[in-house]
């Protein structure tokens, strides 16, 4: 006689794994296996027609670390993250505070802030090209009204990266605003009343009451912004292609260029692994944040 409890348990286990298997097969094919394969590829030399690929250990990482271009790309990406993350979060917060207040044309304002979110980065690149083009671009024309000289925003190393950053902030801020807007609407109105009775200024209320209550949202948005600072690179294909002289080159574009333009998969793989290590650090922040959120419930 089989114990009915045991057989029930066994059946549950079989059902569980059966239900999971389609997703697990796909995840294995396009996430787990490629991750391991990337590590493996990064340990081999690039095969040429004369010399087949051979095991070289950490040689690819060493040559990456000795390559000044790689460090330039890392530096660029750090600047990219360092500018777009705080800028988009602060602008998103300001947008949300405004869009939540009693202002005229509020629904127009909200839609205007949010619209870039639904556009593809490639289209965003095209739209901004009209702004940046030297001579007849919008920025140059506005500058011209004030007698400023023409600036080749995308064509000179000093400005190309910042021009790219601006597009990213434009694209992201409205998206993050939505999360702040939702959080603002959960703040009970009696807090504002209490603050008014106490004679607290609007500034004090925002700084001391609203911002601390928005902390969990800020953490969530922060993690998203960090991931985006690796992921959002499509507009480079339109605006600068990483140039001039790699001044606006970012890591993911660098990986793409090495793998699919220069056909140097091992170097691309080694770069990928380094990016994945950074992303797993972000993951650690995220899991901490999930822990914190559960305390709020």
């Amino acid at each position, binding site marked *: 006689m089989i114990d009915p409890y045991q057989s029930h348990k066994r059946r549950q286990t079989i059902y569980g794994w059966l*239900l999971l298997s389609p997703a697990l097969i796909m995840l294995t094919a396009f996430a787990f296996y490629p991750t391991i394969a990337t590590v493996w590829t990064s340990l081999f030399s690039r095969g040429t027609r004369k010399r087949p690929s051979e095991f070289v250990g950490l040689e690819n990482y060493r040559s990456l670390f000795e390559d000044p271009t790689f460090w330039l790309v890392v530096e660029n990406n750090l600047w990219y993250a360092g500018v777009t993350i705080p800028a988009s979060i602060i602008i998103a917060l300001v947008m949300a505070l405004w869009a*939540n207040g009693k202002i005229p044309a509020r629904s127009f304002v909200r839609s*205007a802030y949010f619209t870039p979110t639904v556009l593809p980065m490639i289209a965003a690149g095209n739209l901004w090209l009209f702004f940046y083009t030297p001579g007849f671009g919008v920025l140059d024309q506005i500058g011209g009204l004030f007698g400023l000289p023409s600036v080749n925003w995308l064509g000179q190393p000093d400005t190309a990266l910042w021009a790219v950053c601006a597009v990213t902030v434009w694209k992201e801020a409205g998206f993050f605003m939505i999360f702040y807007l939702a959080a603002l609407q959960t703040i009970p109105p009696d807090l504002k009343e209490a603050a008014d009775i106490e004679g607290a200024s609007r500034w004090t209320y925002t700084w001391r009451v609203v911002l601390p209550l928005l902390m969990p949202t800020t953490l969530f948005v922060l993690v998203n912004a960090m991931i985006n600072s690796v992921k959002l690179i499509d507009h480079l294909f339109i605006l600068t292609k990483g140039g001039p002289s790699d001044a606006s080159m970012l890591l993911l574009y660098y990986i793409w260029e090495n793998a699919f333009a220069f056909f140097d998969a091992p170097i691309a793989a080694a770069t990928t692994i380094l990016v994945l290590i950074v992303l797993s650090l972000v993951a650690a922040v995220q899991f901490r944040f999930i822990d914190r959120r559960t305390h709020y419930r």
Partner: protein
Amino acid sequence: MTQSAPMTQSAAAPQSIAMTLSGRIEALLALILAVVWTSPLLFAIWAAFHASTDAVNFNLTSPWILTNFATAWAGAPWLLYFFNSFLLVTSVLIGQFILTTLAGFAFAQIEFRGKDIVFLLVLMQLFILPEVLIVENYAVAARLGLLDSILGIGAPYMASAFGIFLMRQAFKSVPKELDEAARIEGCSLLGVLWRVYVPAARPTYLAYALVSVATHWNNFLWPLIVTNSDETRPLTVGLSIFGAPENGVDISIISAATLMVIAPLLIMFVLFQRQFVQAFLRAGIK
């Protein structure tokens, strides 16, 4: 956008900020920012409807024309690109719905050994982004014969960890009584999933669908890598090729093409604005 109840409450605080001077200045700044934020789109509209020389000179009296759209339309197989994008988002969505429903259900309602470890493994995909794994995903797609196919563009995204997590949360909040009632009626496990859990999670499906469609309609890097013929290219890749400087197309025609590409999403956004915003919220916050 219509106002929800809590929003009206918080706006109707005793001292309405719009009354004060600083409130007025803020409202003005908010409007200015809104205009700045839409300006790239407005300039594209301006440029698309004018001859390029008139467009760049901001010749306000110049005639509005449609020839840029005709030229842009004739310059690339847009209809095919639209069709490919449509096929892509549909197949990704169907794949995601099936895979994430089954996996989400297993994680939410079935007790089995090894569940917690597998769940952690699945969550790892939230950070091992398909976007970053392009080198080896390309090799996998090549080995599976998926290069230059719509399925090849969609496959890496179908088992989405994000979707599995979302469905798991949705299924967890379904009352146990409904489940038990259906079982007493004699429903099989898949029957319970189909008759009880899937209908109960309808809002989550809608939210996930909107986010997924917007994401994959706009996706670029992976489709660029996998496709190499017009028969499979989605709109974003087609647009990037059309606008490449080597092709020497002028700003008015690029603007016209860009507007054509973003029009379906923009129209959808205007029509379903509230659902869109709520979809992004639901998808993000849960």
